[in-house]
């Protein structure tokens, strides 16, 4: 990807890590997207059964491009939005994480 090459050639190791979510009395809930790794492939957006994610223009980089992000309406209730994929017992298979090949997405809980 052009953006990555430019960074590497300049010897940059910077990462735009976007933390979407919140911490409140009941805990810490963040979806973290490493936009250096995110290549805008949209697979996580399609994989999420609850439509929590979307692709947005990368406004933080002059070179632009797109990056995955948590939809505005879900950022404040991410604990509830992601609850169905995090059952109390049994195996946790988070479709967004499984779909992401570059490992750009992580959950803090």
């Amino acid at each position: 990807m052009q953006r990555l090459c430019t960074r590497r050639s300049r010897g940059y190791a910077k990462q735009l890590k976007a933390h979407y979510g919140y911490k409140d009395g009941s805990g810490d809930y963040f979806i973290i997207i490493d936009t250096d790794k995110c290549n805008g492939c949209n697979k996580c957006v399609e994989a999420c059964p609850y439509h929590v994610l979307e692709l947005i223009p990368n406004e933080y980089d002059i070179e632009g491009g797109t990056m995955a992000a948590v939809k505005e309406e879900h950022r404040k209730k991410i604990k509830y939005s992601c609850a169905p994929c995090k059952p109390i017992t049994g195996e946790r298979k988070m479709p967004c994480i499984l779909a992401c090949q570059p490992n750009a997405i992580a959950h803090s809980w």
Partner: protein
Amino acid sequence: MKMAQAEVKTQEYWRWPEYRRTVTEKDWRNASILTAGVDIGSVGSKATVMVDGELYAFAVMRTGGVSEDTAIKVTSWALEGTGLEAGKLHYVVGTGYGRVNVPFAKKTITEIACHARGAHYIYGPTVRTVLDIGGQDCKAIRCDEKGKVLSFLMNDKCAAGTGRGLEVFSDLISVPISELGKVSLSVDQEPPPVSNTCVIFAKAESLALLRQGWPKEKVAAAYHAAMADRIVDLLTRVGIEKDFVITGGVAKNTGIVQRLERILKIKPLEPKMDPILAGALGAGLFAKALYEKEQGLR
């Protein structure tokens, strides 16, 4: 508009004063580029008028029920007395919570980007970590030497760690919000922090403490201590690199700032101007850059 010290029954302790100012002798009539940045927050709305990329005038007021009206009001107020009309502005950028509507803005830019840019303007190019504590949110931003965002975290879900939490407390202990921080520092010994994160529960907890005979300063200290702990938690998620600065209305609360310094063992830089303007300043600067790009001046 300073609060009267006397106990007035209808006094709203949580209400901070609104204000406007013209800051420089620079005459807009000689300037090439006139821009404005409008930051509509959930609690406070700020407008800056920039003349060739320098702060010329600004206004800060409480966001009303209809944010589009407040956007117009705060911008008009910033321009008041300057002789400059809104129509003469070359470019206006809006920012604030969500995709808030500043009806006369040509572009809306995220508050994260605006705060990073604005922090650089206020504090200088050495800024690498920006902590913005607003009315209903708390942001931690890592940026580079140009003010470009490298990493961010925003918590606007929960009142704990925000200005609104402080407003609730100032109302609870009947201390004007502009003095709350000072009051929290006037304890001999720091009490244990309030155990409940949730502002609603913390308020109930504090009522019980007041009933037990805790003086106002002690309760204020306990809440400020808890809030500072919470903010540090968020900051630690993105990491802190010097130079560290604080923006937003709560940057003026010495109770929070000193406790943060104590815990982080890093001294935040001293602001050269009102830190509440960071978002609006960043927006005004983006407006200049966008105008120049549009005009092919870049």
